[in-house]
C-alpha cells in the first residue's frame, strides 16, 4: 500500500486511504515519511480525552471541526442507579471533566441518562454517523469496529486525539493489507465471534501488526452488520491497526433511515460512491489468510491473551504443545494464572459469572441471540449473569421486544449501558479468583478485576454456559430440559 498507482486494481483500504490524503509523504533515503490524512469522524469519551483538551487549552488552540466530533460517556459510567451521582469520586471527576470540555469546545455530548449515551462504538453506527468510505478515529483501540462499514477506523493515543482535535488530520504511515477470507457457511450455534477468535488463534496477537485486515468470503458476506462489527472490533487483538468489510447491500440497508444517513438524492449519490469502494478483481494483498467456516466450532480462550483459544470441544493445551519457546513460556504462565490443568476438557470448566456486554457483543442482535437460548429456562443457581446493553438505545429497543423480561426471568441482572465489566473501570468487576465467561474482547490478567479469570466466548456460548454452569455450546442445551419432578 506504499505506492498507489491509479492504473493498478486497488483494495478497499487503499481506496479509502487515497480519498483522504491531504499531503502525501515525501520519499527520502528510500523511505517515505507519513501521509497526512483527513479524518471524517472523531469519537471522544471521558478516559483518553482530558489530557488532550488540556493540551489544546495550554496552546490556545480551538477544536478545528466540532461538527465532525462527538462524545459519549461510557468507560466509567455505572450500570446501576444511573440517576444518582457517580459514587467513585475519581470517576465522577473524569466524567465531569468531559462535560466541561465539551461545553467549552462546543462538542456534542451524549451524557448518562440520554437515549444515545452508551459505548462509543455502539453509538456511532446507531446514529448513522459511521458510513462506508470514511476515516474514523477514537482514543480507543476498539475503534476498528467501524471498519465493518467499509471505513478505515483506527484507535489512537491521547497525543493523536489532541492532534485530531486541533487539525482534523492524522499523520499515518501507509499500512500493508491482509485478506482474511472466510469460506463456506457457519454452522448453527457458531457465530462471528468464533470466526475472529479462530483468526487470532491462527495468526497470533502480533500477526496483524502493520496491516489493515479485510474480511471477505462467503461466510462474511452472509453476516449481518452487527456480526461484522464483532469481527472488525477484535482486529486489534490480532495486532492489526484496522479491520474492514467491503460495503454491500447489507451495509446500505443498515445505514438507511438512521438519523445521520443521507436522504433523497444524496442517498443515491452516496450509495453510488460506496459501491465504488469494493476491492477490485486482481487487486493484490500483501498477505492472505483463509478460514473454513464449514468446520468452525464455537471457540473459547483458555489463556491470558486472545490468541490463546481452542474449540470448545477441545481440552486445555499442554505447554509442550507449543514449539516456539516464547509461546511455551507464555502458555505456562497463562495456565498458572488461570488455575487450569493441561488436558482438562474445556467443557468441564466451571464459571462463577457470565458477562454479556462490551463493544464486541452488546448490540440488539447479540441480546436477541442469547435470549433465544435462555428463554423459558433457569440459570445455574451458582452462576451470576450480568447483561449490559451497549447503549441506552439498545436497552430501550430490547425492552420494547421484551428481552429484559427474558433475562430477568432467567435470573440475570439487566443493567444500564456502558463498557462495564469488560474492563472494570466502574464497580462491575470480578473478585480475585472469580472465573467468568465473557463476551468481551480481552482476557488479559486482571482486566475484568484484579485476579479475575476470563474466558472469551460468543453471546450464545455465554447463554448456554449460564444455563449449565460450565463452558457450554448452544448444542449442549438444545434438547429440552427434563420436566421438574
Amino acid at each position: 500500500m506504499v505506492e498507489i498507482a491509479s492504473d493498478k486494481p486497488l483494495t478497499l483500504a487503499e481506496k479509502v486511504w487515497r480519498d483522504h490524503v491531504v499531503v502525501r509523504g515525501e520519499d527520502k533515503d528510500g523511505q517515505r515519511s507519513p501521509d497526512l490524512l483527513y479524518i471524517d469522524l472523531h469519537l471522544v469519551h471521558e478516559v483518553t480525552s482530558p489530557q488532550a483538551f488540556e493540551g489544546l487549552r495550554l496552546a490556545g488552540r480551538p477544536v478545528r471541526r466540532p461538527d465532525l466530533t462527538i462524545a459519549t460517556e461510557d468507560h466509567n459510567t455505572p450500570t446501576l442507579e444511573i440517576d444518582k451521582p457517580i459514587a467513585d469520586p475519581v470517576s465522577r471527576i473524569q466524567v465531569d471533566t468531559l462535560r466541561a470540555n465539551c461545553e467549552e469546545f462546543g462538542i456534542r455530548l451524549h451524557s448518562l441518562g440520554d437515549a444515545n449515551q452508551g459505548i462509543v462504538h455502539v453509538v456511532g453506527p446507531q446514529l448513522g454517523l459511521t458510513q462506508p468510505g470514511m476515516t474514523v478515529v477514537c482514543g480507543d483501540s476498539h475503534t476498528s469496529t467501524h471498519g465493518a462499514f467499509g471505513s478505515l477506523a483506527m484507535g489512537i493515543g491521547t497525543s493523536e486525539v489532541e492532534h485530531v482535535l486541533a487539525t482534523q488530520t492524522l499523520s499515518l504511515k501507509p499500512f500493508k493489507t491482509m485478506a482474511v477470507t472466510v469460506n463456506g457457511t457457519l454452522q448453527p450455534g457458531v457465530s462471528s465471534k468464533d470466526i475472529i477468535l479462530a483468526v487470532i488463534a491462527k495468526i497470533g496477537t502480533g500477526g496483524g501488526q502493520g496491516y489493515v485486515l479485510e474480511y471477505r468470503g462467503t461466510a462474511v458476506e452472509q453476516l449481518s452488520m452487527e456480526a461484522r462489527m464483532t469481527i472488525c472490533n477484535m482486529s486489534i487483538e490480532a495486532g492489526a491497526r484496522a479491520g474492514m468489510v467491503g460495503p454491500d447491500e447489507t451495509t446500505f440497508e443498515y445505514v438507511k433511515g438512521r438519523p445521520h444517513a443521507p436522504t433523497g438524492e444524496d442517498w443515491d449519490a452516496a450509495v453510488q460512491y460506496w459501491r465504488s469502494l469494493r476491492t477490485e478483481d486482481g487487486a493484490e494483498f500483501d498477505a492472505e489468510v483463509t478460514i473454513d467456516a464449514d468446520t468452525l466450532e464455537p471457540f473459547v480462550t483458555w489463556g491470558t491473551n486472545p490468541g490463546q483459544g481452542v474449540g470448545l470441544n477441545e481440552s486445555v493445551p499442554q505447554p509442550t504443545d507449543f514449539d516456539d519457546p516464547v509461546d511455551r513460556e507464555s502458555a505456562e504462565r497463562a495456565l498458572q494464572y488461570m488455575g487450569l490443568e493441561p488436558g482438562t476438557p474445556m467443557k468441564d470448566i466451571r464459571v462463577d459469572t457470565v458477562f454479556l456486554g462490551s463493544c464486541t457483543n452488546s448490540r440488539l442482535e447479540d441480546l436477541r441471540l442469547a435470549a433465544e437460548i435462555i428463554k423459558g429456562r433457569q440459570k445455574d443457581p451458582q452462576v451470576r449473569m450480568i447483561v449490559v446493553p451497549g447503549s441506552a438505545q439498545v436497552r430501550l429497543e430490547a425492552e420494547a421486544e421484551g428481552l429484559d423480561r427474558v433475562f430477568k426471568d432467567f435470573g440475570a441482572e439487566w443493567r444500564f449501558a456502558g463498557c462495564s465489566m469488560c474492563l472494570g473501570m466502574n464497580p462491575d468487576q470480578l473478585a480475585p479468583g472469580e472465573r467468568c465467561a465473557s463476551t468481551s474482547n480481552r482476557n488479559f490478567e486482571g482486566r475484568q478485576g484484579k485476579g479475575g479469570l476470563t474466558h472469551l466466548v460468543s453471546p450464545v456460548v455465554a447463554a448456554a454456559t449460564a444455563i449449565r454452569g460450565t463452558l457450554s455450546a448452544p448444542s449442549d442445551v438444545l434438547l429440552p430440559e427434563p420436566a421438574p419432578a
Partner: protein
Amino acid sequence: MEPIITHTGTGVPLKQSNVDTDQIIPAVFLKRITKTGFEDALFYAWRKNPDFVLNQEAYKGATVLVAGPDFGTGSSREHAVWALKDYGFKVVISSRFADIFYGNSAKQGLVAAKVAQPDVELIWKELEKDPTTEITVNLESRTVRCGSVDTSFDLDNYTRWRLMEGLDDISLTLRQDEAIGAYEAARLRLKPKTLPAKV
C-alpha cells in the same frame, strides 16, 4: 519534547512476551485527568510480587526496559507510555511492538527500539550476569551496545528525525493549514456531520 540522540543507562530484563497495556497500567489508573504521576501505577499488579524484576534492588534506577516480543499490545491507552516515562524509563527494547503503543511512544519521546529476539536474549544474559552493565542506545547510528552485545535496531527515518529534533507533531501539521483547508473545500458534501444533532 526533549531531543534524544543517545541514551546510556542500566537495564531491566523483563523476560515476558505479550506484555499488554493492561499489565503496564491497569484501567483503574486511567481515571486521572493529568499526564503525570503514574510511576506507582506501572506494572501495578506484578509489582505486588516481591520477586518481580522491577522490585529487585539490583535493577533499581534502570532506564532501559528490555522486554520479550509483542510489547504494548491491547488498549490504546497512552497512559502506558506516561507510566513508563514517569518511572524513569527512556528506552524500551523489544523485537516487536504493538502499532498503537509504538506510535504513542514516539509522540512522547520514549524510544521504542526494535532489536531482533536473539539479540534481546543476549542482552538479557548480560543484564542477569551483571545488573550494573550499561546499555547505550544511539539514534544517530541506530545501534544498541550492552557489554559484549553490539547490534543495530530498527527505527524509521521519520520517527528518528522527530525524536532527535524533539519536534511536536501538532505544530508540524499546522504548517499544512492551507492544504487542510483546500482538502476541506473539495471534500464530499455527502459526508455526515455531528452538528446539528439528529436523533
